[in-house]
């Protein structure tokens, strides 16, 4: 655990991510943050003609709720690529996304209280 990942300089090929996303990039104002929760929609289309990467995401998400960052980690795909795949899958009705709470001060106070309470309850 002492071995930190930090930056890994390597000759990364950009080809693959762009192929996976069919050359698409995310629309400027994308709804997916790293902690947006994603789950399979109850009304997901039955017939699935999906790219292999999208199928992988769907299989993973079939197990339950995960955050976007977790989907990236479990599939081994870069975060940017995962966000694009998820954007497509939500748009096509396969997945549902639940955005994290908006950052308003009142909400933030309640959220902090909840976090503090949770930490104290768990670690005394």
């Amino acid at each position, binding site marked *: *655990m*002492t*071995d*930190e*990942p*930090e*930056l*890994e*300089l*390597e000759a*990364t090929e*950009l080809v693959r*991510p762009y192929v996976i996303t069919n050359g698409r990039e995310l629309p400027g104002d994308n709804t997916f*943050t*790293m*902690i*947006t*929760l994603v*789950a399979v929609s109850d009304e997901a289309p039955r017939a699935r003609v999906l790219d292999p990467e999208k199928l*992988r995401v769907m*299989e*993973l998400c*079939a*197990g*339950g*709720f*995960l*955050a976007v*960052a*977790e989907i*990236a*980690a*479990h*599939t*081994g795909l*870069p*975060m*940017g690529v995962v966000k694009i795949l998820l954007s497509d899958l939500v748009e096509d009705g396969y997945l549902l996304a*639940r955005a*994290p*709470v908006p*950052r308003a*001060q009142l909400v*933030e*106070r309640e*959220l*902090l*209280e*909840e*976090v*503090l*309470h*949770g*930490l*104290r*309850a*768990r*670690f*005394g």
Partner: protein
Amino acid sequence: MGSGLASDRDSAARDSASRPERNAANGDVYLRSSVRTVAKILIVGHFAVGKTTFIGTMSEIPPLRTEEVMTQASANIDDLKGAPNKTTTTVAMDFGRLTLSDELVLYMFGTPGQQRFVRLWEDLSRGALGALVLVDPQRLRESFPVMDLVERHGLPYAIAVNRFDGAPPHSLDEVREALDLLPETPVVSCDARDEQSSAGSLIALVEYLMSRLN
């Protein structure tokens, strides 16, 4: 990065794919379906300060690693054509998760302290409650650029002095002075290998975040 990481990732993917149970409790891959609120705290610090250890200690799931492919202008500014030389860098981040109630889950993102990953920082800091800055008492100077980044992104933070075996005892006041902190910024000591100690520094951070709203 060697093939070791790739195989870790593959096995993680296999593990998760072979775990069908829903509403998993602590220690399992999936979140409870009752979760309504997601919070994020950044664990920041210079290289090898103990971010990964901290996250491993605190996370209820084995820490996960994700990558972002970044394009950045190369350092070579002598480019005569004016076309910027772009290089791509893969930045890896470790993160962990803590389910704090049926409805609330907290993610802790280990965040690299390098100045050049501005876009990554923008993404990570957006919506973050705050940052816990881990510092090594023997390498305080390496924390300066990290703190610059945290402050530039407007993130409130607390300092956790990660105790290392054999490190000379540094009083927390000395650390405060060396880092030129505001009087209200919390400075706590922490052993990133120890759950109670690490949890204590998170609690100190959140208490501070609350005090700022008063």
